[in-house]
């Protein structure tokens, strides 16, 4: 085997990252398995209606057990590194604060930016691994013409995770390997079987790893109660797009743009959350037609395919994880702000989510919808 190197694999205990470790090991690399312990799942158990027991979610004892068993099966060294403090500071707190301010955050991107491709890369380098491999479905490649590392969509578009990776810097991309970028999920499972991995049939994780059952409202209540902080009073008026107050709501963190159910008012025609106004605690509701908008502004921008956006560019913009990128023109409108103008109005553009810009398979960059 030529070019063997020492590679740290971020192992979650799932089939994807386990298969990555098996592949790299089979290729003859020195593989080191690392699991990031990010959140103690038992910490909020039983508080404010949170489930008493949680199973099978990331950072659970079960997942660490699975990852460790895979490492033992492959005969590679394996370590759990604890980054709970940093995770709480850079992911949990912003997650809670975003919701309380009326936005809908994406913790996975924060985790990628601040933990997986930051802290983990540092630890990997400290222990002698120049690069980190993960089980993300994405591709990374150096482009000679541009002289830049590019992030690209994977072969299996149904598993595309580039939306969560738009924040990676050139330095981070240069030290990252995504071995599953050219594979489909069924191929990955088949390879896992071939490598004798007992967890080849383990189901995919779907939800936010630290919110068991997906009930983020209960999580926020439980977290704030644990911190001894009362949930700020974010109750206020339910207002129509015409400015008429038609009712009250129990707190803006209970709402997401585009939401239809749970508004607590009965009207003749269906009502949707159109906008959440953190400043005056208003939830603005209206007919579906008001959900559509032709523009968005993205801030805290990270560009990957170019160092700067000097002139307007035609791209496809993805505004949430399960969104088909829509044609748009992007242009720089401020120091750290990009305006995207869509060809067709888009439904439920949601502050707090990311807007990621694609040029074909290439991730141009992205930013946070403001």
């Amino acid at each position, binding site marked *: 085997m030529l070019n063997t190197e020492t590679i740290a694999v971020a192992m979650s205990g799932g089939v994807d990252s386990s298969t990555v470790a098996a592949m790299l090991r089979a290729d003859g690399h020195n593989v080191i398995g690392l699991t990031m*312990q990010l959140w*103690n799942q038992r910490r909020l158990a039983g508080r404010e209606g949170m489930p008493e027991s949680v199973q099978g979610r990331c950072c659970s004892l079960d997942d660490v057990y699975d990852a460790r068993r895979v490492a033992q099966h492959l005969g590679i060294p394996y370590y*759990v*590194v*604890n980054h709970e*403090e940093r995770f709480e500071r850079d992911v949990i707190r912003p997650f809670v604060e975003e919701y309380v301010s009326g936005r809908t955050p994406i913790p996975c991107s924060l985790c990628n930016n601040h933990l997986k491709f930051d802290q983990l890369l540092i*630890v990997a380098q*400290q*222990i*002698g691994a120049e690069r980190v491999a993960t089980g993300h479905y994405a591709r990374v490649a150096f482009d000679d013409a541009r002289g830049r590392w590019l992030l690209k969509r994977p072969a299996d578009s149904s598993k595309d995770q580039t939306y969560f990776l738009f924040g990676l810097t050139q330095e981070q991309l240069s030290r990252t390997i995504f071995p599953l970028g050219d594979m489909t999920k069924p191929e990955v499972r088949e390879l896992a079987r071939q490598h004798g991995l007992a967890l080849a049939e383990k189901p995919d994780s779907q939800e936010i790893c630290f919110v068991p059952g997906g009930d983020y409202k209960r999580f926020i209540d439980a977290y704030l109660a644990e911190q001894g902080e009362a949930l700020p009073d974010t109750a206020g008026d339910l207002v129509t797009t015409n400015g008429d107050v038609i009712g009250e709501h129990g707190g803006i963190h209970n709402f997401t743009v585009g939401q239809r159910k749970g508004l607590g008012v009965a009207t003749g025609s269906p009502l949707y959350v159109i906008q959440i106004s953190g400043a005056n605690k208003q939830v603005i509701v209206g007919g579906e037609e008001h959900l559509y908008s032709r523009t968005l502004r993205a801030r805290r921008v990270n560009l990957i395919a170019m160092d700067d956006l000097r002139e307007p560019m035609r791209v496809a913009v993805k505004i949430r994880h399960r969104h088909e990128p829509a044609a748009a023109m992007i242009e720089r409108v401020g120091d750290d702000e990009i305006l995207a103008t869509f060809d067709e109005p888009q439904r439920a553009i949601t502050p707090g989510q990311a807007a990621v810009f694609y040029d074909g398979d290439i991730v141009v960059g992205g930013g946070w919808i403001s």
Partner: protein
Amino acid sequence: MHRIYLDNNATTPVLPEVFETMRPYFGERFGNASSIHHHGQQTRAAVEDARESVAVLLGCRASEIVFTSGGTEADNLAIAGLVAAGDHVITSSIEHHAVLLACKHLEEIGCEVTVLPVDGRGLVDPGDVRRALRSNTKLISVMMANNETGVLQPVEEIGGIANEAGVYFHTDAVQAAGKVAIDVKRIGCQALSISGHKMHAPQGVGALYIRKGTRLQPLFYGGRHERSRRAGTENVPGIVGLGKAARLAKEALDRGNDEKMAAMRNRLQQGILAQVEEAGVNGDGAARVPNTTNIHFDHIDGEAMVIALDLKGMAVSTGAACSSGAIEPSHVLVAMGLRTDQARASIRFSLGKQTVAEDIDVAVALVPEVVARLRELSPMYRRPALSS
């Protein structure tokens, strides 16, 4: 890869001569030590020989030794066995969790517990023990040697205070046994715990010294084994191993091997500190067991250091084995007043009987190199400006 093992406070390898002594008890000498017949007599003799060897190591009578499954059971047996609801217990903030969590459980069943602080060297002040005494104080439990720093506590003074007050004194001597001389009469304790695998006997065996005439409530029921103090068929191979290890330890201490061990430890410590700035010994200035040194390397993450060293073939730890992977910094180092980041930047090196001079040479070369790499890549570290 040639591996160097400097984590003997986590566990020690079973010495070859200990293993050889145990071997027949996995095979032809299989009898239940409680049986009447030949097979039982054979293993009963072996268990009692071992008991005598342990008694010699601790300076007590054989009948005062109760074999257990290890140090944790010995600690729990002493604490739960001597105390009842309504009693007051005094312990220290640097105890092993086997003691601290047993005391926490006591609180749940209606006991009062006072947890004493330590000074910057990691020492309990006997004056604090005296001041903590109450009319309902039943037990004082303060360890002999700390597992993370190796610091030796003033157990003889504490024993004197306990006896004067008519209070039981238990000491967790798991990290002292085999490393320094132990004499239960000089300590003046009613109970003392040891663990086999910290002194080159196997895992899964330990012992509690319990002074003759001390009423002890057993932890479990099921037979009159160990004079009704510990029910359950004896772990004969383990007990035989502990007996042999105790005998070897006593002989080595009599020969002055602890001084040789201390010399090796000091060479390791000084060799590292001579090459690394912003580092220091935790527990400096206190008497310590001869095999342990705990060093803080500021601006590094101890967890990353343990991994980096392991990948280069050297085994050390950030503290208690049970704390690995935990977010909380060492309760021992925090109790000594270290900042959280310094506690997290601390590494425990612990030598064993198998440690040789070459191991120290390698460690003295490797550790500064790894610290330098970690600091170079650490966002927390700003290199000091070069002096002209």
